[in-house]
């Protein structure tokens, strides 16, 4: 059995000094943004905000300077992230590129790709989406079927991606396609590409979520031509690249802060005269929250130290999303107020928004069942 390690660490003084700066920036930028908008957490898309973040040097913080990065520590980046999420800042226009696409290019991209894309991402000018899931490939990602066939100068792509968040707003998509087909070896033959979302042969249509919002898309490729120089990494190396990409992004503050806006509104509502029940509810949630923050920080420190805490990251995401989903339930059990869309109190609206959003918390970025399978492997069970 592999041992779990969650060792506490301290954030360095430089990271803590940065925190005050970030808070001041957010206070000015977000002003009196209503709680229900803050509750969108990392769902909010605002290019102007992202450009300001870029100008501050708070995107691409850990990347080399020659690609527009700032060569700061992963822990400083962590502080910026958790402050953004706790405040409910609209980070989504740069978030995916900062978290996944940029690091992917840094690790596996060509020099030309890095020079072309990374500085623009760092400035907050280039927005990315992730094209992984397909109609018949969700958790079983290796089964994906969208074909990229080699043609002169590049690849011809045919197939369909679904649940592609913000593809209708993004400039590029990192998409994983099948370049070789051998049913016996489905993990091989996957390849990643940088896809311009405006390419001919791409049709996007919205998939409206249960609350009536549009962030998901269906993206259909019909003989779309992707040039050779937009391939990321080796032909056939996609599976390894995708799993690396996922494993490193499961332990961040986004995995336990999604319902933070609701906890704040709960405290606001009961703080004048908390009875024993309300106090116990708030106390319990805060106990969970502060523990999760320490667990998440612990993984961040291991990453900064160059370790490979895949197992711990899966634990943080499983425990964190369980907590995020519990908050609306607990508020309902305590207060019994009606969740609303745009009427009633801030608390009711935030409750209404998060109650409808919560099912996604344990689906996105690897379902709960997949994560628990990873944890079980760590326990020596499979």
């Amino acid at each position: 059995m592999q041992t779990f390690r969650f060792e506490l660490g301290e954030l360095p003084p430089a990271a803590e000094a940065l925190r005050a700066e970030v808070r001041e920036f957010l206070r000015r930028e977000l002003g009196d943004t209503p709680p229900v908008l803050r509750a969108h957490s990392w769902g909010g898309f605002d290019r102007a905000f992202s450009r300001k973040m870029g100008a501050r040097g708070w995107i691409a913080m850990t990347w080399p300077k020659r690609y527009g990065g700032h060569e700061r520590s992963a822990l400083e980046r962590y502080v910026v992230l958790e402050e953004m999420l706790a405040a409910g800042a609209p980070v989504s226009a740069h978030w995916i590129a900062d978290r996944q696409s940029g690091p992917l290019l840094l690790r596996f991209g060509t020099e030309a790709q890095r020079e072309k894309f990374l500085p623009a991402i760092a400035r907050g000018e280039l927005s990315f989406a992730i094209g992984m899931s397909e109609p018949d490939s969700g958790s079983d990602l290796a089964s994906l079927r969208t074909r990229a066939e080699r043609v002169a100068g590049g690849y011809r792509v045919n197939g369909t991606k679904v649940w592609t968040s913000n593809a209708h707003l993004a400039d590029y998509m990192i998409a994983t396609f099948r370049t070789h087909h051998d049913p016996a070896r489905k993990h091989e033959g996957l390849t990643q590409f940088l896809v311009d979302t405006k390419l001919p042969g791409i049709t996007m249509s919205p998939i409206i979520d249960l609350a009536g919002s549009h962030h998901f898309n269906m993206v259909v490729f019909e003989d779309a031509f992707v040039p050779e120089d937009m391939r990321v990494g080796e032909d056939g190396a996609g599976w390894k690249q995708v799993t690396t990409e996922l494993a490193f992004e499961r332990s961040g503050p986004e995995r336990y802060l999604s319902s933070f806006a609701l906890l704040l509104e709960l405290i606001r509502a009961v703080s004048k005269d908390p009875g024993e029940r309300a106090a116990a509810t708030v106390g319990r949630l805060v106990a969970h929250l502060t523990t999760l923050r320490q667990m998440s920080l612990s993984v961040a420190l291991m990453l900064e130290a160059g370790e490979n805490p895949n197992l711990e990251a899966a634990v943080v995401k499983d425990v964190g999303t369980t907590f995020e989903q519990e908050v609306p339930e607990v508020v309902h059990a305590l207060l019994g107020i009606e969740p609303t869309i745009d009427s009633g109190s801030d608390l009711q609206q935030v409750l209404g928004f998060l109650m409808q959003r919560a099912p996604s918390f344990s689906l996105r970025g690897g379902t709960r069942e997949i994560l628990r399978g990873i944890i079980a492997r760590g326990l020596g069970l499979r």
Partner: protein
Amino acid sequence: MNELRTILGDVVTRLFTDLVTKDLLESAERGEWPAALWQTVEENGLTLPLVAESKGGAGGTWGDAFVVIRAAGRHAVPLPLAETIVGSWLLSGAGLDAPSGPLTIAPARREDTVRLVRAGAGWRLSGSAARVPWGGAAHHVVVVAEAEGRPMVALAARGAAVTRDQNLAREPRDRLVFDGSPVVAAAPAARGVPASAVWLYGALARSAQIAGGLDYLLRQASQYATERRQFGKPIGSFQVIQQNLAVLAGHTAAAGTAAANAFRAADRGDAAFEIAAAKVRVGEAAGVGASIAHQTHGAIGFTYEHALQFVTRRLWSWRAEFGGEGDWAVELGRAVAERGADALWPHLTAR
């Protein structure tokens, strides 16, 4: 974790693995004091981690104490080791010498009051304290009480009237009656140590024991799931068992983190927030963890014959001792409400 602490962890694990056997646990449950085990633990310098070296202690930190107490929980060590560590720390902070031999701490319940009253040149204790851990076996009792407007630490010899009682794991939880009993020594508590210090640091100690107990449950249940075969294969190869054990792993990780965080805060000073959070979090983990560990073991884990119950019965008691999740959640929730919603995040990130 620093190197010395890793060595300390290895030493206690080896010692407890060798000495805390099933036979020893069973005899302790029949009421026999494990004198040889105590002597070895004391000789190895594990009882006074927070007492200065010049006073016969190890001159360590709460971080070191965490390693020892968590290991004691993992091995269900039937000794007032956590109590001795807390008691000797209280004494040492008050400038008093820690005696050798096992200590306990009182009062263990919030509703009990033990009064410390000046009598001539010395002090006397009166009142009663129920559910005192190893109240009858400990050689001395450390009491913290408000006297003359400040928190005082008093050391009393065994001799107070003792009524035996026990917890679910048959660990002694005795009633001590002080009837104007003289104290060996008394002095003002260290700065920042409140009159409720026994309650607070008792909860801290139990958090580490529970975290250790969960470490055991996770390891034991995972191992059992790879050994026990049904339907022609190890039960751990069934996804439903894997998912349950993954949940146990999450609670175990959370409990260990919450407890470690509280011990770190204790080294910094004011740890009331972290201790409350830890007792809430580990208590919840204890309930879920015991349930999953038993479910995984099936009927064999429900027998006295199997060692699983030495830990699960302790978890069921420990989570209620020095305040259950409800008590600490109310305390924590009130403090959070008092600071207000907008202070929550700055408070969390400043700790």
